[in-house]
């Protein structure tokens, strides 16, 4: 049994999750304090990957990073190629998972009591301190939930990934593309094992989310 797809999937999901964690929080923080009109437009743009079919996202990514397109050509001269490479999978997963992190983080930031920040400022605390020591702990539950959701989405990504990086065994194969390949080649037994692996990972993720929500409820009740 070749465990490469598990390792590759975890690697792609972990890296894209880290990218999405910081970019999602950053965008959520700034969009939450934008003027209404701009906020509406940016919100649609940033949420689009959640609503669009993943294959459409993949097609758009190919349009950008494809080897016959300007950005892709430029990157290739710099020695970077996102098409048919495992780190292209990071881009595909990050794009698709981004809205989940962004939206949950924004919801958390919007529920933040802004007088806490002002009170910190009157005490002479820097905005940096306020962000990391007051705002983030206050919004902790929402941000953790967003991260878990983004990780789960990145791990299960199929559509955009298969379009951008395809399926090369021991190279770009992920769990989800492997399951599809095995089913196509009639290897029911191996496909079944991967399905079990997938279910196990999903169960862990869901249990984590539920546990966080429960802790959140208890904290509010006390």
């Amino acid at each position, binding site marked *: 049994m070749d465990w490469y797809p598990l390792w590759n999937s975890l690697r792609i999901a972990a890296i894209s999750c880290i990218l999405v964690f910081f970019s999602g929080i950053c965008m959520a923080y700034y969009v939450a304090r934008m003027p209404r009109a701009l906020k509406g437009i940016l919100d649609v743009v940033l949420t689009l990957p959640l609503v669009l079919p993943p294959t459409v996202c993949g097609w758009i990514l190919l349009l950008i990073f494809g080897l016959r397109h300007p950005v892709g050509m430029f990157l290739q001269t710099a020695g970077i190629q996102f098409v048919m490479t495992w780190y292209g999978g990071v881009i595909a997963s990050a794009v698709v998972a981004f809205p989940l992190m962004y939206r949950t983080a924004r919801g958390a930031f919007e529920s933040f009591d802004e007088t806490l920040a*002002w*009170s*910190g*400022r*009157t*005490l*002479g605390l820097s905005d940096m301190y306020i962000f990391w*020591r007051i705002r983030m*702990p*206050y919004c902790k539950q929402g941000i953790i939930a967003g991260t878990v959701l983004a990780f789960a989405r990145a791990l299960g990504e199929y559509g955009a990934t298969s379009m951008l990086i395809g399926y090369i065994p021991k190279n770009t194969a992920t769990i989800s593309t492997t399951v599809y390949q095995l089913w196509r080649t009639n290897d029911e037994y191996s496909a079944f094992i991967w399905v079990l692996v997938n279910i196990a990972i999903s169960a862990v993720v869901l249990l984590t989310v539920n546990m966080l929500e429960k802790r959140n409820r208890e904290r509010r009740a006390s």
Partner: protein
Amino acid sequence: MSMDVRIQKQLGAFRLQVSFQTHGGILGLLGASGSGKSKTLQCITGIEKPDQGCISVNGRVFFDSEKNIDLPVQERRVGCLFQNYALFPNMTVEDNIACGVRRVCSAARRRDIVGTMMERMRLTGLNRQKPAQLSGGQQQRVALARILVNEPDILLLDEPFSALDSYLKEQVMTELDNLLAQFRKDVVIVTHSRDEAYQLCDSIAILAQGNLEVIGEKKRIFADPQTPAAAVLTGCKNIVAARRAGPCAVYVPDWNIILDAGQPVDDAVCAIGVRAHCFHEQTKENAFPVQIVEEIEQPFEWIVKFRYAVQPRETVPVWWRFAKMIRPEAMPSRLGVKPADILLLHENTPRR
């Protein structure tokens, strides 16, 4: 110790236009909700930016639109007690207070400062508690402790008692009164309660619809509120339109009587105010026949509404209030008002 505030700010249809100077002591900003008193406070802390004007405290300029000065909130050294106290919910009481220590010092020294302040504010033993576990009074003391270790130049309190139960309020108010007496720096208290303003403040500024109506020593404000809006906020129940009817007399159309005001009346007088407890059966001045309309029983006093015999039916009855102990056998048929108890009111023309 002085404060100079002259600001203008347009907020939609609402226009805030406030200017006042203080020379030490405790100033109360008294106003109804939406009168702009909290906005004024926010302009001083730097949360809101005025369109025009200047703000300076003890000679330090916080804001000056002409010189393009707008000091960041962090550098203003303004201690602000927010309505909900704004304690950081994720931190313990101790950490909350430690956040306020502005001085750069060792961790041990910092702990020392926090410990001393906690003792002074009677918070000993609550070190590891989270704000949500504290009572309203304790939360307020933690917030004040956090502000005091911050060593602010000026203290601003925004409705300091609005989050407290009424029975707790009086006790906390007395504590705060003592604390402010020790603070010895400028204090501004925003409130809508004339009782709080009277008990805690030295001088009072009255705001209505974004304008500063009157400002002055509190006893003078209560004795002579000058404008109808100020009279309402100092608790005057009977405010009616009036006009000059002689050198020392006013005619009150709603009551259809002429009253002796006991002092020269100018043409600018637009209304008079008579406090509800100022009517007496024995008073011979300004005494007219009355008809009782309604009697309302309160725990310790009676509120009686009456109309003068010559007063038109459709007008609002007059409020009369007296302690239960002195309730007469029968309701009087005549009530008088001393000329000194008649407040002459002018339309928004501060004369001080």
